[in-house]
């Protein structure tokens, strides 16, 4: 039993991250997989959610906005609202752009958000970040493992909720319009659909889900720092979606599991294998590895492990290749 404990505690830790990432990737899947919106600013909207929830729920910070000490639930809802509002503002300005132009713009916006987080000390704590973000269940359970396990259950419940909600959405007439816009926006518009309005709604809902993911992250780690939201995060999340299968919500969840598994395993392996002096350089190999995995995926299974299924409610099956 004692030997099992570290394994169990590591597994819990790992799965919490997987479920948090899965929530975010589901948000991205609505935007990219179902609507074809090339959002490369995911980290920015995750950051907004994380900071919002931290500010709303944490105890008083001296000389800073926030520390409202509100319940965690309020923080999570607040995270969705602010990330959604941010997406609305960004979307109105940027969503008229297509493809790579939208990608460049959202990338820039995410960088801006990250830099603001790093420098707006009065709001985000600047480089120190926000400490003492409440971690639910720590007082209920004496042990870290107990608290983490309870938090994992919460994350899985929220993931299930998000999954069901988004599945309903994409299987509805609303989702049908999103897919039509992804396939051929001109044709969708000529069939009476206001493409811009639908793109905007998809963008806002997706970003609100990303904000929720950010809040889940903040309440697990217990503090929020600007360096958590660098472009590498966006890259990892995109890798999860591509590997799992864009346009399939189950693929998005599976991708989060697989890519985060490869990421942590390779990280541990590289730490073991590289000599002490070369650790920093060794860590860079992780990114290379994910990049290679991504390329291999795009060559051999361009639709991901489980890609989109054409047909209503996934009834007509068509495998992943």
């Amino acid at each position: 039993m004692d030997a099992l404990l570290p394994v169990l505690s590591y597994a819990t830790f790992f799965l919490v991250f997987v479920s948090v990432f899965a929530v975010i990737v589901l948000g991205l899947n609505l935007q990219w997989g179902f609507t074809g919106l090339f959002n490369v600013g995911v980290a920015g909207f995750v950051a907004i959610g994380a900071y919002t929830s931290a500010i709303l729920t944490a105890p008083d910070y001296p000389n800073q906005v926030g520390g409202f000490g509100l319940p965690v639930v309020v923080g999570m809802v607040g995270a969705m609202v602010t990330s959604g509002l941010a997406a609305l503002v960004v979307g109105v300005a940027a969503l008229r752009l297509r493809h790579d132009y939208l990608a460049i713009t959202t990338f820039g916006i995410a960088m801006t958000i990250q830099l603001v987080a790093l420098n707006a000390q009065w709001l985000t704590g600047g480089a120190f970040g926000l400490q003492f973000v409440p971690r639910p269940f720590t007082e209920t359970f004496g042990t870290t493992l107990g608290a983490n396990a309870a938090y994992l259950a919460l994350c899985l419940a929220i993931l299930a909720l998000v999954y069901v909600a988004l599945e309903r959405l994409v299987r509805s007439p609303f989702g049908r319009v999103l897919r039509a816009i992804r396939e051929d926006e001109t044709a969708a518009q000529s069939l009476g659909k206001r493409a811009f309005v639908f793109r905007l709604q998809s963008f806002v809902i997706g970003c609100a889900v990303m904000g929720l993911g950010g809040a889940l992250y903040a309440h697990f780690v217990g503090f929020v720092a600007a360096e958590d939201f660098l472009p590498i995060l966006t890259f990892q999340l995109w890798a999860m979606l591509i590997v799992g299968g864009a346009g399939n919500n189950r693929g998005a969840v599976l991708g989060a599991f697989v890519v985060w598994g490869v990421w942590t395993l390779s990280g541990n392996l590289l730490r073991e294998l590289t000599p002490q002096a070369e650790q920093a350089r060794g860590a860079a190999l992780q990114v290379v590895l994910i990049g290679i995995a991504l390329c291999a995926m795009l060559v051999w299974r361009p639709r991901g492990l489980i890609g989109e299924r054409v047909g209503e409610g996934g009834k007509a099956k068509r495998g992943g290749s």
Partner: protein
Amino acid sequence: MLVARDLVKSFGGVRAVDGVSFTIERGTITGLIGPNGAGKTTLFNCLAGLFPPTSGTLTLDGTRIDGLSSDRIFRAGLARTFQIPRPFPEMTVLENVMLAPTSQHGERFWAPWLTPGRVAREEATLREKARHWIAFVGLEPLVEAPARVLSGGQRKLLELARVLVAEPKLVLLDEPGAGVNPRLLDEIVATIAKLNAGGVTFLVIEHNMDLVMSLCRPVMVMAQGRLLAEGDAESVQADPRVIEAYLGGAIA
């Protein structure tokens, strides 16, 4: 029904549509013919709102529609098909058709969460309607197939079903016969005639003269952005200006 007055569309210095005026009567199948580059498709794109006309007015049943975006023109009752069909390839034939009807309750993002029952009922009705039109154009065996597997001619039929399910007043068809095998062409002609008998008005761009002669009355002829002639098929064919436009000045 549709009245165009002095319609102009210029791209830089080129006037692709150069002062075109016409009236389309309810219940007709009007043909629009002319040599390549005459401006027919550009005219279509102006009518359907793909881009606004540079000047001139368009009224549909007394309502101005020039300058409106294509989605609003569709909702006003003017639908179009494309010269090169544009189905949604990764959606089934059924989904392609079910997309088109306007003002679907389930297109509001909150509807599937808050009123799933109402959405499901609407979808059931819509599915029947879509199946009816798919059967009408003869694509019934392909109902659940992704649109990308359809042949060129089948794609044209799909586009036709897709606009018809929304019950438009006026349908613009851009070369329904091009690239279609003769048997399928007969089907398309029969389909259009049947619909017309049911009260749908058509404006058809076509190069296939057999199709135009058998189906269209009146026929309008465009050349170099202008409307050259209008009348029934025989008189238009005999018009020396039309012959000149097609064959060059030497004959006339």
